[in-house]
């Protein structure tokens, strides 16, 4: 049977899904790589002794708990 006409199987669809996920992830990752290192470091507060925050529970303002 011509592969183009072969009924699509579950594994094919799963592969399509993985491809779609990878494409989306790559899109975000590509954009993230374009960020300026120095600016990102500045936002993260690496250059000065600021608190690190913990986003595991957002009704807390500080994670120096």
């Amino acid at each position, binding site marked *: 049977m011509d592969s183009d006409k072969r009924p699509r199987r579950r594994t094919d669809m799963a592969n399509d899904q993985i491809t779609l996920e990878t494409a989306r992830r790559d899109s975000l990752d590509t954009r*993230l790589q374009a*960020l300026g290192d120095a*600016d990102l470091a500045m936002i993260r507060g690496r250059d000065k002794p600021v608190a*690190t925050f913990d986003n595991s529970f957002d009704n*807390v303002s500080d994670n120096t708990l």
Partner: protein
Amino acid sequence: VLELLVIQPTALCNLDCTYCYVPDRLDSRRLPISLLETLLRAVRCSRITEEQKELRILWHAGEPLAAGIDFYWQALEVTKRIMGDRWRVRHSIQTNGTLITHEWCELFRANGVSVGVSLDGPARIHDTSRKTRDRRGSFVRVMRGIELLRSHDIGISVLCVLTSHSIDCPDEIFHFLVDNGFCQVAFNVEEIEGPNLESSLLKVQGGLIAARSHYRGFMARMAELNRDRGWPLAIREFVSLAQLIQDRRENSMHVPIVAEQKAGAILTMSRDGIVYSWSPELASGVPGVPDRFALGDIRDVKSIDDLLATQRATTIQREIDRGVEMCRRECDYFGVCGGGSPGNKFYERGTFAATETLKCALQTQELTEVILTAFAGPQAGRGPSLSDSRTVQPTVR
């Protein structure tokens, strides 16, 4: 690993903020110290903590100071006695700031308690939502408490809730914080949780699309002001997301681990000894069913492992896992999010097996776009205005 133990010593609160999600805030019952002892022993002998050397305890409620200072002297002593030989225990408290006295400051100093104060901005903004029981603003009393903390050299971080009244005022809030010497702030959005069935951010014309635009404008302007002044403010949302972005940049397979999604990683105990896990807001239950997510009574078990092995725990965890998997499949931002907050999902969508919430849309998606717009490329972070950036359209339905 038990990453955070949240203890609600009382639901009582002297304020009546418009967006509060804690029920029974006039109930003055207090956690008996004997129940605290039972909880700590159940934590100590748990399998999930057997490798642990450190424990973070957060006193939260209600207004935690409403439990009274004598309660805390006892509670901190009991904690030291039961956990002290093996664990380094770090205490923190999230307070509305209105009940702070010199005596409280001495307790915080003596025990190294980290203090977070809820403050929504200058009086005009703060007093719109954070009101006393007789409907007056609480700003003056909060600032008095902050001054007392400062007089004892106690560092303060600010928790600021963004509502429809404040989200268009980034300049006013930024200048208020910086001019008053604050250097750490977290911006929560008003969320739909527990008894708070609506968010003012969604009640404006345009609904979610408008909320996205307003949030993005607020955070972009915050970044702009902060950058122009040399980053005087550590803004939790930027610091946290920038770290997640950095992790992802270093390893494109990296996915954040979200403690709220893991049974036992966060435990919350209410004043009556009922234990909850996952998002601490789940301890608020749902209207009419306060124990909707209760795992059990601490008096009925020897170890917290017994609570995490219940049928309810297994069922909830399975549903949370389904929701996270849906996020992984459907959301472009999964690599810097990890699947969101189960509490937000349930309260907004009625199930843990859901994807996008208001918090995702704003604090993950829009904030990522703010950072990407502001700091990507050779001219990044140096443009004239970050706050003109367009709103990202929803990618998950």
